[in-house]
């Protein structure tokens, strides 16, 4: 699939999602619930000073990015020391090809997969399936989406947030489920189906929350236990990670992990924190006998050199999605990319180019709530604004807005033009007035007035009042 999830236009996607009442209600409910829990657990972390934690964790991540070559080297040396193999993939194709070739060479028939954004990014599942490998997503939400004809994820942490239990029942029914739409029964069905897959799989594939440079360990943060099974049952295992996913030490990882579950789902910790340290010792009952780490660049080196490099501090917690007033209304699929919400707005055009995603930077009211909640201290709203600047000034993306803003800049920096403009504007908008309000705007105003009234422009501006008053006129 890759980064882009469908070929429909931005407007079509948006319209479809704005009309999806269930999805929209689910977003509102999930945002409120997670945000509330997040606030509560963060207030109990240390002395409850989140901005201090945010700063600390941001420093931990920024430090690695400043010295990424050093830490990547250290990390990969340690993976090899632990008996593993390391492959540096320059793009999505190289990464997915490496894993697919490995599967073919080792005669792999079935893969069990843990949820991972980067494997979505490199389009790994379809590549494996094209090679005749059976791929089983084992994260419950991803499992549902896979059974639903690879319905794309709409949230980084809760991928099937857009589906309700009845829809999920219907998806399962096509696969042999005969029960009701009770969450417990649905989960039990998925569990029974999946148990068998782990022990019969030839390969386990998972992502990486944090790669620890000092030890070569892959850290995985999870709740369902499926990741533990992917890291223990198959003898051949592959971890896929973005090249920025490194922390220097266990101590640094501790800071990030302390914030990750709290920021992601409003929980003090997840059920499992798993460290995979290469191949297992001789004679052990489980664990990898062969272990590979695929480190994916796919545009990240370019991002690192750019003014957007702070976005690489991201730990994919989705706190920004859970805070964003736009995501709340439109849901993940409106971004037409696997990365959605404020993080998606920043990251998607960097990894996949502006051409297909030039509307994304405008899906933001610049309210700053994403920046406020980000546990990696990324100035998300400022980076979104920087995208707008690039589109406006470097790409000249809109002739209409370019001309409008030139005009506005000219008027606003010349008092005589401003005064003239604001004195004639009420006359010009007079034809649009109904009961002293604009209810049906034209051109750009239409977007406002479809659902909102706009007050009339003042015939007596503040400056007129002030002037007549200082001359002793009306009060």
């Amino acid at each position, binding site marked *: 699939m890759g980064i882009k999830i469908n070929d429909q236009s931005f407007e079509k996607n*948006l319209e479809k999602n*704005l009309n999806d009442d269930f999805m929209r209600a689910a977003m*509102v409910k999930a945002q*409120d619930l997670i945000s509330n829990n997040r606030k509560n657990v963060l207030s109990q972390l240390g002395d409850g000073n989140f901005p201090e934690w945010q700063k600390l964790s941001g420093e931990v991540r920024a430090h690695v990015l400043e010295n990424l070559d050093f830490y990547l080297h250290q990390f990969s040396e340690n993976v090899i020391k632990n008996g593993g193999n390391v492959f540096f993939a320059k793009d999505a194709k190289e990464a997915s090809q490496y894993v697919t070739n490995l599967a073919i060479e080792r005669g792999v028939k079935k893969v069990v997969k843990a949820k991972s954004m980067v494997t979505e990014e490199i389009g790994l599942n379809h590549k494996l399936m094209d090679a005749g490998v059976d791929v089983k997503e084992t994260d419950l939400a991803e499992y549902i989406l896979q059974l639903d004809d690879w319905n794309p994820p709409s949230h980084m942490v809760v991928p099937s947030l857009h589906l309700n239990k009845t829809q999920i029942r219907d998806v399962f029914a096509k696969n042999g489920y005969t029960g009701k739409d009770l969450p417990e029964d649905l989960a039990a069905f998925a569990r029974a189906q999946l148990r068998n897959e782990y022990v019969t799989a030839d390969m386990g594939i998972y992502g990486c929350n944090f790669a620890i440079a000092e030890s070569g360990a892959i850290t995985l943060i999870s709740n369902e236990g499926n990741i533990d099974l992917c890291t223990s049952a198959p003898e051949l295992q592959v971890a896929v990670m973005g090249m920025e996913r490194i922390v220097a030490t266990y101590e640094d990882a501790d800071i990030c992990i302390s914030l990750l579950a709290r920021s992601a789902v409003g929980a003090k910790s997840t059920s499992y924190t798993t460290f995979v340290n290469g191949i297992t010792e001789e004679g052990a009952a489980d664990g990898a006998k062969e272990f590979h780490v695929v480190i994916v660049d796919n545009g990240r080196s370019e991002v690192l050199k750019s003014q957007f490099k702070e976005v690489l501090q991201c730990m994919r917690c989705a706190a920004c999605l859970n805070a964003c*007033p*736009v995501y*709340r*209304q*439109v849901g993940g699929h409106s971004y037409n990319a696997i990365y959605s919400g404020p993080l998606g707005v920043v990251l998607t055009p960097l990894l996949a180019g502006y051409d297909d995603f030039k509307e994304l*930077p*405008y*899906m*933001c*009211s*610049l*309210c*700053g*709530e994403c920046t*406020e909640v980000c546990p990696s201290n990324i100035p998300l709203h400022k980076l979104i*604004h920087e*995208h*707008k*600047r*690039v589109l*406006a*000034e470097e790409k000249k993306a809109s002739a209409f*807005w370019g001309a409008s*803003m*030139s005009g*506005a*800049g*000219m*008027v*606003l*920096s*010349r*008092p005589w033009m*401003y005064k003239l403009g*604001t004195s004639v*504007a*009420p006359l010009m908008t007079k034809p649009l007035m109904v009961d002293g*309000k604009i*209810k049906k705007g034209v051109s*750009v105003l*239409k*977007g*406002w007035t479809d*659902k*909102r*009234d*706009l*007050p009339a*422009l*003042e015939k*007596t*501006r*503040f*400056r007129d*009042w*002030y002037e007549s008053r200082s001359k002793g006129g009306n009060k």
Partner: protein
Amino acid sequence: MKVTLFTTCIVDFMAMNVGKATVELLEGLGHEIDYPKNQTCCGQPTYNTGYVEKTKNTMKHFIETFEHAEVIVSPSGSCVSFVKEYPHIFAEDKEWKERAEKVVAKTYELSQFLIEVINIENFSAKLPGKAVYHHNCHTSRFLQVKEQPLTLLSKVEGLELVDFHNSGKCCGFGGTFSVKMGEISAEVADEKARYIQEANPDYLIGADFACLMNIGGRLSRLGSNIKVMHIAEVLNSK
């Protein structure tokens, strides 16, 4: 104190009463108003749309118009928060950066000024009824002015202030976002308006006219009779 007033462009031509209330309130507290007639706009609309270079002349004009002031006060936290960005935007331009820094150091949002600079304890505002306060993003998040408006409103005689669901979330205005992504903006405004209606207040109060115009525009379309008031108007109510 001589207070130099930056009304903001939107108040100038769309909400004259907000400017008027600000003047009367400050004069009532014994301050002298200085209103530079050449003022226009802080530049935020063009800047936030991405046109940074096209904004710089507006910003320079603002600095030239206001740098003589002892203190600059504005009834908009959003515009003030943008002025506070000037030194970063002029980071590569030593002269304008320094001039911007001097302006920034003496620029205040109205409620911030009343609490932090002149420490008003008592004033005689009266407004009977129940009200909600919308924390607009730029005032509360960028300026970190959260408690000041509430402190002031708690002293208004007869006014009962109640909270409403998600009072700290964005109303969906966002400058040109409100027309460029009008459909999404309207949905955000609709949710905000519904939560306000659930609290059943007589008044919606805010410290930024633009957000009030947005929420008020939706309330008006929904046929609500909740009265929308800027905090300056409330504090100036007798």
